[in-house]
């Protein structure tokens, strides 16, 4: 077991983990089993394809199933639980997902929000095709991405008049 110390959603945490423990396991596992109990981050595959486990590590969108917990030593990790406004209300990006029906079953949603936040940090006014390209590592099976793309565009302050008709 190795001790790992990191910051998660602004709070310093320290845990004993196995060398093989993945970051997503550390985040999700029950506190009784040595995890942080942050179950908002999801696991949807085992080949680093679906992006449901996306979190921010030092500001970068990272698939937490593809990173060992020990690699996060000293890092600042943000999960979906750390994305709302300080008063607990939805952030503008989260609000845009609700406003534009960017989620149905909700399982891919945390990863989508984290990836979208990383995109908007890099490129505050992405084109529709830039949004779709950036989402290449996140799979949604419910929405056909329609509402997700609309939500991200809206969160970036851009109108999509072509979409208004439908």
């Amino acid at each position: 077991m190795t001790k790992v110390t990191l910051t998660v959603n602004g709070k310093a945490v320290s845990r004993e983990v196995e060398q093989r423990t993945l970051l997503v396991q550390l985040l999700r596992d029950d506190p009784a089993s040595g995890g942080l109990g942050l179950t908002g981050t999801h696991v949807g595959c085992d080949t680093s394809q679906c992006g449901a486990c996306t979190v921010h590590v030092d500001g970068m969108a990272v698939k937490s199933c593809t990173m060992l917990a020990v690699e996060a030593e000293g890092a600042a990790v943000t999960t979906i639980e750390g994305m709302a406004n300080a008063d607990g209300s939805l952030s503008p990006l989260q609000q845009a997902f609700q406003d534009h029906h960017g989620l149905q079953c909700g399982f891919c949603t945390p990863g989508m929000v984290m990836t979208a936040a990383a995109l908007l940090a890099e490129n505050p006014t992405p084109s529709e095709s830039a949004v779709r390209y950036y989402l290449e590592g996140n799979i949604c099976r419910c929405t056909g991405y329609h509402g997700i793309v609309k939500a991200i565009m809206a969160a970036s302050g851009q109108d999509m008049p072509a979409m208004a008709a439908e």
Partner: protein
Amino acid sequence: MPKDTSAPATGIGAATKRREDIRFLTGRGRYTDDINLRGQAHAHFLRSDVAHGRIRSIDTAAAEAMPGVIKVFTAADFASAGGLPCGWQVTDRFGQPMQEPKHPILADGKVRHVGDPIACVVAETLDQARDAADAIVVDIEDLPAVIDMKAALAEGAPKVHDELTSNLCYDWGFVEENKAAVEQAFRDAAHVVSLDLVNNRLVANPMEPRVAVGDYDFATDMHTLYTTSQNPHVIRLLMGAFVLGIPEHRLRVVAPDVGGGFGSKIYHYAEEAFCTAAAKALRRPVKWTSTRSEAFISDAHGRDHLTRIELALDADHMFTALRTETYANMGAYLSTFAPCIPTWLHGTLMAGNYRTPLIYVNVKAVFTNTVPVDAYRGAGRPEATFQIERLVDKAARELGADPVELRRKNFITEFPYQTPVAVVYDTGNYHATMDKLLEISDRAGFEARAMESQARGKLRGFGIAHYIEACGIAPSNLVGQLGARAGLYESATVRVNATGGIVVMTGSHSHGQGHETTFAQVVADMIGIDAGQVEIVHGDTANTPMGMGTYGSRSLAVGGSALVKAAGKVIAKAKKIAAHLLEAAEGDIELKDGTFSVAGTDRTVDWGAVCLAAYVPHNYPLADLEPGLEETAFYDPANFTFPSGAYACEVEVDPETGAVEILAFSAADDFGNIVNPMIVEGQVQGGLAQGIGQALMEHCVYDETGQLLTGSYMDYAMPRAEDLPLFRVDHSCITPCTHNPLGVKGCGEAGAIGSPPAVVNAVLDALNRGGHAVSHIDMPLSPARVWAAINA
């Protein structure tokens, strides 16, 4: 409190934002894998890596000595358990029941597909369980596998189940009495058009893998199963009564937030029974979480039909007869509803939107050494629609007719319409949806766009399809005659609290559909209060009435109808209370915007006061009326509902590479009345993505030895954001359902049903316009297949 009429509308027809989104967007959803019980142990299944083999021995000694291992289970531990039951018995053309092999919890004697569970390790941690599974020694005698359906039916083919007479589950004919007349119509036809096609095998792939957590309380002799299910009551009934012998009052099944289903979470799976039984055997909770790789070899697959379809037309291009022969893959075992998908959910839809007077459908269901196949979004109806709409398009091309006009000429226009395949369409207006489609897809402007593509060296194509589906599953007395071993009603309890708030307990289940929002809209609208005063509870057998769950686009049409019925009973009783409070005749009481009034007077009492009187019955007609305000209703539909719609796909094909790009996709649906247009559009968009995925990308492939070649997201192509356009979705064509109280038809599957033929028709249109006389390409239309067709 009366409704604030200045606030945004929250009733029927309002695009109310979803209340469940708040928890999903903040990481506070509670999915099954988020549940960790005190003292929980972890299960890991050792699964067969060969498609067919006889188990000579299983040595678990080394595994049981590994750190943290509590027990290694094999079939011997389940000697007294029943098999996983099949919920539908199909009767074949000769009046005989289908062949129905046992499906054990753990493989017993033979393994029959890659992924068949052989043993299960339960250990203190998941990693320990996985490590120990590697130490189990299984000696398997490899047997030749049958993968191809026609080969499986050949004389002398290896049998998946030794105790059966062959690999044929059933040979079904429908309508058998029409067969001779259909054949005569083909002999008399002016034109006959035929097509051989494949409906490609798919994997549903909800983003949440399946999970089961079993728990047992010795103090109360109470079992609890937390599971990723679309229908917890069905699991409780099937697992309790048929597999483990647990009476329903000793078994609670909870399906909390469920991350999508698309059919694959309808069925009762071995892992659910395992975790439930193991929790009692080990006296501690047992949890199993599927990996995605495991999901590919253990979740029921979908589609996988081989079909020859033929259409007879007269000299005036009127359809005179249709006949089909389909081979339907059942996989190695019969999944819960597998037998009914290629029969009653497929054969009964073969009239499509057309007045074809004579139809004969033959289906041979076949056992193979592959994962069981069952319903996947649309289930039988996409297969029917794909056949019909591909064939009609082919007929138009061969006859030199316009594909829209050929369809229009044969459209059913009079309703109710008795099809020659048993079902009666109650309403529809197919010309209206076609008109709307041509408008929103701008078909008139297509030629100019095609010229523009041509100038860039690309081939542009426009494909249409018109679909019919049967939803609102289903009238119990009818499906009982057809072999269903269950009723298909739905239930609701409406519990009004003393202070006027309402809790609705529904037997329906939401795994993305948004029931918590839409069901609240319905009840709020009926009473005239704000939807925020209505809470929806679902997914727990302990606090919801027996219900059949969510699939087949049935939630609103059947579950919503139960809700309307229960709320109607509540309102009827509330009016009695109001009549007493207002000292008026019950028949004079009106309810509007949450206020009861005496007709023609200014005397009123509001909703809250009536609710309070029901629970604090000081001034109350106790001699005539029970206190309280809570009612339960069960609703059994009188008929299926028949949503329909017209879809258009516009593609551009790169003739150099065969790559297909979807430039536009338009959908004009008739779903009857709409409760929440935002949610309806979302359902269509998601269905379109899955249908386009089937048409262009998704394909579950086995090699000849039964190894799954597409066992992860590295190999099974899921549609991503870049693969899809923004969709043009319209639902303004409305012919309300005539036999349910909301006039709703269901919208969950339409997109996946109507889109595959539209996409394929569009690609073929592009190729033929480009001078490539290609009559058909089997799905998925990958660049390699399209390129090969161009260069054939």
